[in-house]
């Protein structure tokens, strides 16, 4: 059986031992009447075993499971570490996956792990559907359910039980009645309960166990006395049996035991311990602090080398050591036994307890299990040790985008200690940004700065690598805080500082700082600079292996290229990134965004079937929160708009509206404004004007990049009103917008404004003036193949295009546009490549062509497939007007490209 189980999603793999169905123990008493009850109940919704520890719940379940084929069972042993909604459900899904592989691939895990988590009902609905798809019975067995107290679980369990498909049955074992609607289920006959009273051994069963199974030779009175004293408590009877093995004078012992008032387990464990050789006794006591035991771990804690031998002996002697897997690598003590041992330990080895925990913590830290390392450190109240482990894991947790994990770890650590730890404070600050707590973040970052400035000698540092970068990390943290406050200048300052401080090979952090520069320029409207920074960020993230961040930065780069009027480059950027993602293999949650970007480009080129195909591809890849579902709806809205179905487009925007999540990136296409445009086109002018009024957008406003789209929207509404004064207003506004767009080099936006100005002139009856507005747009848009830019603007504009063609202004282009408008099928507009520059990718290929590498080697170097390489190479040849590698290199040299 695999030691770990893969989990879709990006966190640590799941521990295989938790799925291991316990085997029946040698010498276990068979409880056939109880098995029959479970069999009957297992046909219904829920079987519940609710009884204190040591009553034999797990043993009974083990006995029952032995009679069920493994393919119908999903077993999960819960422990403290799972007491968190996300962990719990991930493990449940992990347990269900072998029998229902669809559970891992249906997207439920991604939804669960998203930074803005979906309601548990949505997540579970996906899983329930997967389970229902297969008619075979499936039993989900959850052992030790009492450790779960997290809120998200109770709601989820209630939902699951309410919507249980008939083939799924749940079995819970717990020390308390679980927070599940038991009364209701009892009333409906959906529940089978096995409680303490049911689990107590009867005198007959006790006799069978003691005499037949354990081979003791007790008379009936003695058995009765034991049964009375223990009240049939199986765990206690087992301990009693162990105390009696090979003992003379069993009756005396039993009489003394019966007459004693002591807590039974304590009494009996002490007896059992007394009969062990000192080495074994010491081993038991010292390892009792461990939740799970393995030979190497025990050796680390006891500082001896006999762990393997000890564990084997304990298992043979039935000393409450339970194997957790088939290979006898991991064990645990029965909880009751461990508790009593720990009490003894605290008495006999009081001074050593903290040391034992420290050794366990160190072992777990060295074996990359930070959760357990931290727990042991905290058990010894060794906060500094715990903080050290956390600090060493912090960068990794940060890069895997699990801020809540770091924050949960840090909760028990006293502030007084944190304030001496600049690295940990800084990562804490970053993590708090991840959950939206900007104030907390600023405070922690300030703490870090204070230590560095005021008392660097007192700083406690465990991650030297991060400490060396700390001023840069702090600058990045401060940069994101400024970004949240939309302060572009300060953001840029911090980002530049960070870049100056970071080493050239710190690709992840450089990428983050560069992306921050990009954002700072973006909110100011300097899109050319923004695009270059984001493009550079992509390169950094590819080098650091942060695929998700590379995708995000690529998507932003493409959006910026579009706004600059560089559609071809945008397309290449998106395609290159998709190639990279595909070559890397493995699922990438954000990849669908790239296809949505391509879909919108196809819309602009009026390639509507292409746009639809990209949407389908996006769906196949998977559309995951937090932002992609929103974008998916918008991409479809655009397609419907191009198809002329404005009603549907508006409906999609309405659907998308509640999904919007504000982020660091400026909202350059506010949904409400887009919808107002659609209303204006539909003639719903009153509603469109309402939007403008609510947003307080007027034609006299000072113009900023942040409100550019909205002001252009207003201009459209004014044009739609079609009164002389509204048209005049629109024109005046558009002139000002044109100047602003030109100043910011926002050529794509400039085209749109130009077209609208042409429409305004037309509306004023001035076709000559309109044509002079349109001409530069036609010339500028032609190389990029813009289509909807014109086709979306109504029949009057088409008439103007006819006029332009007649006047010899880009006649071929105009003909193509008119044919597209008439709906007659035409091949995709050929975008003439007049002295087209090579793209970044193509330049990369050209450089490799100059080397001695073969095709496959070049493809490997670029991290693309051979086919992709061939496509790039063909493009390079065609642009250079050549047919061979040698000729290409010669021409490139002539052009000074190399």
């Amino acid at each position, binding site marked *: 059986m695999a030691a770990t189980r893969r989990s879709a999603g990006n966190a640590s793999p799941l521990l295989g031992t938790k799925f291991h169905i316990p085997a029946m123990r040698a010498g276990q008493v068979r409880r056939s009447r109880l098995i029959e009850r479970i069999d009957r109940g297992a046909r219904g919704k829920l079987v519940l075993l609710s009884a204190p520890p040591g009553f034999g719940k797990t043993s009974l379940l083990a006995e029952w499971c032995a009679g069920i084929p493994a393919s119908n069972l999903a077993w999960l042993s819960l422990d403290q570490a799972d007491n968190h909604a996300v962990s719990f459900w991930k493990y449940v899904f992990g347990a269900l996956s072998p029998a229902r592989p669809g559970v891992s691939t249906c997207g439920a895990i991604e939804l669960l792990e998203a930074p803005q988590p979906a309601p548990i009902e949505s997540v579970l609905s996906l899983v329930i559907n997967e389970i229902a798809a297969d008619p075979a019975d499936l039993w989900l067995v959850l052992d030790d359910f009492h450790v779960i107290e997290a809120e998200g679980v109770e709601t989820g369990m209630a939902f699951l039980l309410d919507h249980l498909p008939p083939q799924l049955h749940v079995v819970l074992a717990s020390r308390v009645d679980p927070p599940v609607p038991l009364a209701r289920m009892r009333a409906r006959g959906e529940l089978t309960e096995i409680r303490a009273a049911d689990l107590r051994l009867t005198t007959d069963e006790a006799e069978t166990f003691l005499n037949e199974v354990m081979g003791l030779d007790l008379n009936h009175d003695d058995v009765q006395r034991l049964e009375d004293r223990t009240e049939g408590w199986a765990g206690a009877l087992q301990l009693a049996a162990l105390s009696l093995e090979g003992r003379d004078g069993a009756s005396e012992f039993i009489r003394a035991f019966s007459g004693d*008032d002591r*807590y039974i387990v304590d009494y009996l464990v002490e007896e059992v311990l007394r009969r062990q050789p000192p080495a074994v006794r010491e081993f038991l006591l010292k390892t009792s602090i461990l939740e799970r035991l393995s030979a190497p771990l025990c050796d680390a804690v006891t500082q001896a080398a006999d762990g393997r031998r000890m564990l084997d002996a304990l298992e043979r002697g039935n000393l409450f050591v339970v194997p957790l897997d088939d290979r006898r690598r991991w064990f645990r003590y029965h909880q009751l036994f461990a508790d009593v041992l720990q*009490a003894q330990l605290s008495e006999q080895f009081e001074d050593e307890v903290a040391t034992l925990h420290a050794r366990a913590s160190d072992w777990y830290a060295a074996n990359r299990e930070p959760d357990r390392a931290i727990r042991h450190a905290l058990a010894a109240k060794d906060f500094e040790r715990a903080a050290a482990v956390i600090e060493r894991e912090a960068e990794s947790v940060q890069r895997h985008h699990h801020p809540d994990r770091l924050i949960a770890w840090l909760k028990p650590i006293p502030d007084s200690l944190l304030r001496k730890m600049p690295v940990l404070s800084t990562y804490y600050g970053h993590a708090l940004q991840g959950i939206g707590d900007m104030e907390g973040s600023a405070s922690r970052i300030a703490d870090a700065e204070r230590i560095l400035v005021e008392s660097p000698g007192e700083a406690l540092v465990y991650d030297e690598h991060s400490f060396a970068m700390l001023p840069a990390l702090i600058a990045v943290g401060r940069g994101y805080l400024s970004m949240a406050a939309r302060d572009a200048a300060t953001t840029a300052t911090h980002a530049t500082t960070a870049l100056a401080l970071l080493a050239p090979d710190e690709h992840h952090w450089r990428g983050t700082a560069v992306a921050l520069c990009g954002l700072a320029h973006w909110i100011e409207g300097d899109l050319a600079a923004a695009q270059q920074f984001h493009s550079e960020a992509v390169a950094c993230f590819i080098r650091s292996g942060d695929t998700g961040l590379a995708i995000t930065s690529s998507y932003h780069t493409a959006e910026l290229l579009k706004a600059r009027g560089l559609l071809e480059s945008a397309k290449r950027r998106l395609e290159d990134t998709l190639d990279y993602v595909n070559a890397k293999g493995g699922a990438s949650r954000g990849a669908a965004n790239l296809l949505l970007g391509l879909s919108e480009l196809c819309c602009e080129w009026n390639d509507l079937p292409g746009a639809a195909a990209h949407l389908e591809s996006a769906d196949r890849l998977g559309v995951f929160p937090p932002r992609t579902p929103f974008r998916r709806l918008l991409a479809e809205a655009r397609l419907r708009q191009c198809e002329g179905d404005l009603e549907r487009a508006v409906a999609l925007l309405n659907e998308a509206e509640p999904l919007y999540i504000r982020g660091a990136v400026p909202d350059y296409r506010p949904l409400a404004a887009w919808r107002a445009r659609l209303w204006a086109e539909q003639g719903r002018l009153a509603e469109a004007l309402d939007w403008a009024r609510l947003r307080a957008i007027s034609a006299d406003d000072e113009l900023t990049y942040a409100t550019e789209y909205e002001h252009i929207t207003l201009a459209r509404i004014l044009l739609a009103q079609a009164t002389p004064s509204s048209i005049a207003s629109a024109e005046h506004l558009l002139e000002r917008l044109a100047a602003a767009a030109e100043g910011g080099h926002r050529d794509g936006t400039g085209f749109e404004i130009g077209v609208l100005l042409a429409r305004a002139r037309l509306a004023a009856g001035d076709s000559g003036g309109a044509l002079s507005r349109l001409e530069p747009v036609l010339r500028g848009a032609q190389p990029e193949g813009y289509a909807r830019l014109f086709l979306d603007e109504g029949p009057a504009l088409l008439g103007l295009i006819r006029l332009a063609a007649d006047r010899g202004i880009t006649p071929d282009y105009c003909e193509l546009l008119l044919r597209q408008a008439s709906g007659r099928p035409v091949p995709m507009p050929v975008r003439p490549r007049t002295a087209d520059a090579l793209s970044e990718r193509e330049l990369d290929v050209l450089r490799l062509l100059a080397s001695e590498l073969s095709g496959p080697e070049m493809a490997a170097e670029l991290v693309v497939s051979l086919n992709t390489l061939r496509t790039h190479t063909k493009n390079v040849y065609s642009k250079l007007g050549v047919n061979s590698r040698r000729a290409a290199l010669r021409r490139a040299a002539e052009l000074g490209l190399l």
Partner: protein
Amino acid sequence: MERANHPSANHYQVRVRGHLESRWAKQFEGLALTLEPAGITLIEGSLEDQAALHSVLRRIRDLGLELVSVSRGPPSTNNAPAHHRHPTATGDFENDCSNQGS
């Protein structure tokens, strides 16, 4: 421990069946164990809040001890047999005594 001086702290008395040795006091941090007749152990002391109380109750559950009663009220007097009283190492016992005096 600061707990005894916390303004919202209350004094609780929890009784379980089965006598607990003094070493168990560590598992019930800051609380005193008193052995009473009929095999009852009295676990008592000042607990900060309800959460702390539930923590104690959970411990009892996990030990499989039978919970007999929980009550809230002033500290029990010193009439209990002196040789059965198990003060904790943390000295809360002393605090309890001094609280009575003030």
